[in-house]
């Protein structure tokens, strides 16, 4: 499997309170990679690092085969980028913005840009500074898609958009991806949205990538088990235990990962009764993963 983005041992420090340490990340070619994490976990900083906007303190970044930050401008020519906040010049009109953006990209598809402008119902003479949040989001997506990118880097592209605009923006994105087979790295707070569109997932917390796996593994492998008579110290398990919590009476609640149905036999061997296996949705899996990472971090400290 080749990778559109490869990050190895990345380190970066911003001030005294925040640092990215020893970050490893691989975004497979052709995947839609969801980049999850709470506020301030370092998603936007990581995106800026991999686009060459910030210089890393240590480690290597390769994007579409180009070394970043030194070859960032070569990589950027093949990337469509939607930043977290509108960074375009507010005094330009939509048409002027498209013209300005186009002048930097040899791959700019003017007819596609015009088609998207009409589809998104953006007026050419409207000033960027007066666009609503939804219109600004559409314009950013238009600019990202019209360069016919091989890689789309989207930093919370639908954050704050109403459901109708969000659907339009995501529809345009999915249409492009399905037509061109582009790779997508999409950071978002909207867990359920990621669940719908992503096939890989990376979870970031406090400057570290605490989980990276295919979406199906993340969605189906994490379960909550209700157990009676659980041993104080469990012998080696065929699954990973993310959390153990006391339940009612002698019951315990375990949150496990890499769960398969045939693993119920392990409990019989341990003289433990498995009462219930509860499926978790992506949001709950996300929260449990973060909890486990923080607990582990706390213990290590």
């Amino acid at each position, binding site marked *: 499997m080749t990778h559109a983005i490869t990050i190895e041992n990345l380190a970066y420090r911003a001030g005294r309170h925040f640092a990215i340490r020893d970050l490893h990340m691989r975004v497979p070619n052709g995947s839609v990679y969801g980049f999850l994490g709470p506020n301030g976990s370092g998603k936007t900083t990581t995106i800026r690092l991999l686009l060459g*906007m910030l210089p890393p303190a240590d480690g290597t970044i390769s994007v579409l085969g180009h070394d970043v930050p030194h070859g960032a401008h070569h990589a950027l020519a093949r990337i469509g980028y939607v930043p977290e906040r509108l960074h375009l*010049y507010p005094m330009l009109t939509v048409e002027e913005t498209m013209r300005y953006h186009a002048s930097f990209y040899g791959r700019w598809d003017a007819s596609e840009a015009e088609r998207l402008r009409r589809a998104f119902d953006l007026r050419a003479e409207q000033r960027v500074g007066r666009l609503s949040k939804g219109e600004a989001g559409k314009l950013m997506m238009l600019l990202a898609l019209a360069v016919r990118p091989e890689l789309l880097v989207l930093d919370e592209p639908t954050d704050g958009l109403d459901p109708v605009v969000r659907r339009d923006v995501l529809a345009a994105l999915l249409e492009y991806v399905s037509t061109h087979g582009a790779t997508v790295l999409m950071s978002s707070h909207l867990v359920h949205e990621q669940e719908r569109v992503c096939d890989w997932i990376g979870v970031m917390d406090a400057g570290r990538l605490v*989980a*990276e*796996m295919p979406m199906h593994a993340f969605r189906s492998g994490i379960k909550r088990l209700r157990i009676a008579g659980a041993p104080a110290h469990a012998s080696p398990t065929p699954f*990973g235990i993310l959390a153990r919590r006391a339940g009612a009476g002698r019951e315990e609640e375990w949150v496990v990962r890499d769960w398969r149905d045939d693993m119920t036999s392990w409990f019989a061997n341990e003289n433990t009764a498995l009462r219930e296996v509860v499926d978790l949705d992506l949001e709950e899996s996300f929260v449990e993963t973060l909890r486990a990472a923080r607990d*582990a971090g706390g213990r290590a400290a």
Partner: protein
Amino acid sequence: MFGQTLYVQWKWNRDFLAFYTAVGFAAPLVILWIALPHLGLTSALELVSVGNAVGMTTAVIASVAGLTVAWQGYGIDDRVGHIYALSLPITRRRALAMRAGAAALVLALPALGVWVGATLAAGQVALPATLHSYAGSLASRALLAAWLAHACMFALRYSAGRQAKNGPRNASRRPRGPRHCGGVAATGSRCAVQRLCLPHLEPGTLRGTVRPVDADRCLTRASLSH
């Protein structure tokens, strides 16, 4: 590419440039108009002293124009914590060169105003033969002053201004104490459910080896040790 950069610079600074061009145009005429009845302009020395006053005034005006263009230019670039041009497929050096070049070109406008004003002012008096390049020298001085001021401010703004904004937003102002998990909160009403809310840990508390095991089956090493 440069044409578009120049257009952006012009569109962003045009109001201020129009103002400074008008002031630069008027300054020689106004100073001459004030000085004329008092000095009488009977000798070359008096003309030169008036010329010095005009030259100083126009240079100051041009310097302020240069500072304004550099200040404003960076302000618009850095509104959202990063510079738009850095996300475009050009090298930093080229992006900065284009931005500086565009600013240098638009700053010729106030100098042009000075040149026209000084030419008109010079036409009001009989200049000695050695002072025939008066308008041109004033305009050159204004242009150089504008470029110098712009270069200093440009260097200061583009080299030092980004340090504070590289981290996550408001990282240094993050309140202490418990808070809701952003990811959960963003999904709506379930944020209020206690079991879905994570305590906020101060960054220093998360030490230890927390890194992927491999690309396919990856959680934390620490979580595997349970």
